[in-house]
C-alpha cells in the first residue's frame, strides 16, 4: 500500500475508528450487541416477510421494485442523519485534522478518506438492520434479495456524501458545537422515525392483512399509473434484486455522487477545519457599574446549575435524547398488541409515562449537575458545606422534573383520580430516589462526556439508577389499575434504592444530604 495514498489513509481512518469504538466498549461486548441487534432485526423482518411472502414470490412481481424503492427512500433520512452524525465526529471531534491538513497530503485525499470512512460507519449502522433482508431472502428462496448488499454500499456512499455536505453547511452557519448538537438530534429523530416505520403493521391492527394493504398500495404503480415499475426512476432500486444494470447504475451513481462531493467540497472542508474555534466576535463593551443581587448560597448554587445547563445546547440535546429514547417504549405501552387506543385506560398509562419521563429527566439533570461539575474543588474549598452543595444539586435536578410532572399528575387527577394521585406521589418519589442515587455515585468528567458510559461511575449503582424509573413506573401502573402485583414492584423499587444506598455506604461515600 502506497503511503499517503487514499487507501493508506482510509486504513488509518478505520483503525482509529475501531480503536475509538473498542476504547469505550470491549470488542466482545460489541460483538454480542451486534449479534443481538441482528437477531432482533431478523425476527422483525421475518414477521414482515411472512406477511409479504405471497407478494415476494419468484419471479418477483414488477411491483416489488417500487416497493423496494420506497423502502430505501424510507431509510434514506436515517442514513443521512447517521452520515451527518459520523461526519461531525470525523471532522471535528477527533482532533487530528490539523495534523493531516498541515501534512503534504492533498485536501482531496484527506477529505475523500473521511467520506469513505463515514460511509463505512453508515454501512455498519444501516447494515445491522438491512443486511438481514439478504439472509432472510436466502431462507425464503429469494436469493435476489442479496442485492441489499450493493444497494447498501451505494446508499452509504450517498448518505455519507450528503452528510458531509450538510455538516459543512451546518458548521458554516452554526459553528461546530451547535452543528454537532443539531446532527445528534437529526440522528435521534431519524432513528425514531425508523422505529415508528417498523411499527407500521401494528397501526393497522390485527384484523388488517398487511400484505393486502401493500398490494393495494402497489396498484398505484400498475401500467397507466404515474410511476410504473418499468420507469427509469426505479432503475437504481432494481439493485435490491441484483438486477445487473440496476446494480451497476446504483453503484456508479453513488460513486459519482461521492466523487462530486469530494471534488466540490474538499476546499470548503480545508477551510472548515479552521472553524473549530467557536469564539464569538468581540462586541463593544460599554462602561458601566457592576450590580450584583443579594442572594443566599442555595439560590446562588441553583442559579449556577440552571444557567450552565441552559447555556449548553449539547447538554440540552442530550437531555432531550434521553427523553426521546422513551418514545419507542411509550409507543409500545400504548399500542402493544395493536391495542386500539379507545379501549385503553388512559389514566394508568399516563401515570406510568409521567413517572418514567420525570424520573428520566431528573436522572439526566442530576448527571449533568454531579458528573459535569467543573469546579468541584471550588465548591469544596468554599465555606458552603458539602451537604448544602448536595442539596443544591438535588434541588437543581428535581425542580425542573417536578415542574413538569406535578402539573401533569394534577391533570391526570381530573381524568382518573386514583391514577393521578399515584402519578403525583410516585413521580416525586422516583425523582428524589434517582437523584439521590446519582449523588451517591459522585464521579466527575468533562461536561461533554457526561452521558458517556465511561462517566457512569460505579456501574451497578448507575444501572440501578437507570432501571429505577422503570420499576417505579411499572409500580405506578399496577397501583393505578389496583393490581396486587403493585406491592411487588414497590418493594423491588425500594430494594433497588436500598442496594444503591448500601453500595454507596460500602464505598465510603458520604450519603448524608
Amino acid at each position: 500500500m502506497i503511503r499517503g495514498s487514499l487507501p493508506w489513509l482510509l486504513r488509518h481512518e478505520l483503525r482509529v475508528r475501531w480503536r475509538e469504538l473498542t476504547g469505550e466498549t470491549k470488542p466482545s461486548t460489541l460483538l454480542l450487541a451486534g449479534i443481538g441487534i441482528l437477531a432482533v432485526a431478523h425476527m422483525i423482518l421475518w414477521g414482515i416477510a411472512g406477511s409479504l411472502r405471497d407478494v415476494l414470490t419468484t419471479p418477483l412481481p414488477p411491483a416489488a421494485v417500487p416497493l423496494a424503492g420506497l423502502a430505501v427512500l424510507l431509510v434514506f433520512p436515517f442514513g443521512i442523519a447517521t452520515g451527518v452524525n459520523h461526519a461531525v465526529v470525523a471532522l471535528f471531534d477527533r482532533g487530528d485534522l490539523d495534523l493531516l491538513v498541515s501534512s503534504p497530503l492533498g485536501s482531496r485525499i484527506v477529505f475523500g478518506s473521511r467520506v469513505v470512512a463515514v460511509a463505512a460507519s453508515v454501512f455498519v449502522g444501516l447494515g445491522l438492520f438491512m443486511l438481514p433482508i439478504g439472509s432472510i431472502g436466502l431462507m425464503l428462496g429469494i436469493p435476489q434479495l442479496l442485492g441489499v448488499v450493493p444497494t447498501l454500499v451505494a446508499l452509504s456512499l450517498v448518505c455519507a456524501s450528503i452528510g458531509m455536505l450538510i455538516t459543512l453547511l451546518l458548521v458554516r452557519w452554526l459553528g461546530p458545537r451547535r452543528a454537532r448538537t443539531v446532527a445528534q438530534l437529526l440522528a435521534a429523530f431519524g432513528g425514531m422515525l425508523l422505529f415508528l416505520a417498523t411499527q407500521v403493521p401494528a397501526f393497522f391492527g390485527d384484523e388488517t392483512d398487511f400484505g393486502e394493504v401493500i398490494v393495494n398500495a402497489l396498484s398505484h404503480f400498475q401500467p397507466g399509473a404515474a410511476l410504473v415499475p418499468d420507469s427509469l426512476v426505479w432503475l437504481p432500486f432494481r439493485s435490491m434484486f441484483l438486477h445487473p444494470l440496476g446494480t451497476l447504475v446504483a453503484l456508479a451513481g453513488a460513486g459519482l455522487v461521492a466523487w462530486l462531493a469530494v471534488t466540490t467540497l474538499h476546499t470548503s472542508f480545508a477551510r472548515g477545519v479552521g472553524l473549530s474555534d467557536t469564539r464569538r466576535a468581540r462586541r463593544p463593551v460599554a462602561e458601566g457599574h457592576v450590580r450584583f443581587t443579594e442572594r443566599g448560597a442555595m439560590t446562588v448554587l441553583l442559579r449556577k446549575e440552571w444557567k450552565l445547563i441552559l447555556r449548553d445546547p449539547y447538554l440540552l440535546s442530550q437531555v432531550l435524547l434521553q427523553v426521546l429514547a422513551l418514545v419507542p417504549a411509550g409507543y409500545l405501552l400504548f399500542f402493544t398488541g395493536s391495542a386500539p387506543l379507545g379501549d385503553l385506560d388512559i389514566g394508568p398509562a399516563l401515570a406510568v409515562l409521567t413517572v418514567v419521563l420525570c424520573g428520566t429527566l431528573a436522572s439526566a439533570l442530576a448527571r449533568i449537575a454531579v458528573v459535569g461539575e467543573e469546579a468541584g474543588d471550588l465548591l469544596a474549598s468554599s465555606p458552603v458545606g458539602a451537604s448544602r452543595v448536595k442539596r443544591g444539586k438535588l434541588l437543581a435536578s428535581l425542580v425542573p422534573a417536578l415542574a413538569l410532572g406535578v402539573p401533569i399528575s394534577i391533570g391526570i387527577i381530573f381524568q382518573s383520580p386514583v391514577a393521578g394521585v399515584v402519578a403525583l406521589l410516585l413521580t416525586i418519589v422516583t425523582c428524589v430516589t434517582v437523584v439521590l442515587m446519582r449523588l451517591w455515585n459522585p464521579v466527575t468528567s468533562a461536561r461533554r462526556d457526561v452521558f458517556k458510559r465511561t462517566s457512569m461511575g460505579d456501574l451497578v449503582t448507575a444501572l440501578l439508577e437507570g432501571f429505577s424509573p422503570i420499576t417505579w413506573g411499572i409500580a405506578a401502573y399496577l397501583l393505578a389499575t389496583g393490581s396486587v402485583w403493585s406491592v411487588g414492584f414497590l418493594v423491588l423499587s425500594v430494594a433497588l434504592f436500598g442496594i444503591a444506598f448500601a453500595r454507596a455506604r460500602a464505598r465510603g461515600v458520604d450519603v448524608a444530604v
Partner: protein
Amino acid sequence: MSAPDDASALRLTGLTKRFGSKTAVDDVSLEVRRGELYALLGPNGAGKTTTLRMVAGLLTPDAGDAFVRGHSIRTEPTAAKQRLAFLPDDPLLYGKLTALEYLDFVAGLWGVAADRAAERATELLKWLGLWENRFDQSETFSRGMKQKLGLAGGLIHDPEVMILDEPLTGLDAAAARDVKDQLTDFVKSGKTVVLTTHIMEIAEQMAERIGIISGGRLIAEGTLDELRAASGREGGTLESVFLELVAQR
C-alpha cells in the same frame, strides 16, 4: 480553636495523609506568618499538592491538623475556609459563565454582600485587565486570562491566606509577570501567600521563606540563606541548594 497567635496565618501540625499503603504526606509541621510569601518546593510526587489540598479542606488528613488564622480546618472548616482562597494550577472556572457571573457566584459562596462584591469585582477585573472581557464566557478565554479570572475569584472575598498550586503553569511571560506582581501586592497588603512551584527563580525572587518537601516529609525550611547553610552550598543558587538537599535525604 487553637491558642490564638495574631502573627500566625497558617500552621500545620503533624499533617499526614495516606493513600492505601503509601504515605503521601508524612507528619508535616510548619508555620507561615502574616504578610509572608512562603514557597513549598519539592520533586514531582513529593506531596506538595496533597498538603495544600488538605489545607484547603479538599482532603481530610489522616492525622494532624491545619489552622488558618487559628481556625482548624477539621473542626471549624467554615471559619477556616472563610479566610482562605485556594487556586490550583488549572483554574476552577465554569466555561459557560461570564467573568462577572463567575465572580458573582464565588462571592455568593463566600457570603460577600452584593454591593461589596460588585465593587470588588470591578476593582479586580480592571486590575487584572479583564474588564473588557467581563461579559464573555470564560470558555473563550486564553490560558492566562483564565488564570487571572481564577485569581480574581480567589480574591473576591478578600481572603487572609491564599494557597496557590503552581500558579504560573502555562502562562506566557507577560501574564506570569502580572500574576507575580499581583501576588506581591497582595502580600504587601499584609496578607499571606503559600505557593508551590517548580520554577526555582520564582521562589528565589518572591518567597521570604521556602519549605522543601520530599517523599512526603518536610526536609528543610527557612530563608534562602538558611537553606544554603543547611545544604553546605554557600552562595549557591536555589536550584543547586534544592537538588543538594533532596539528594542528601
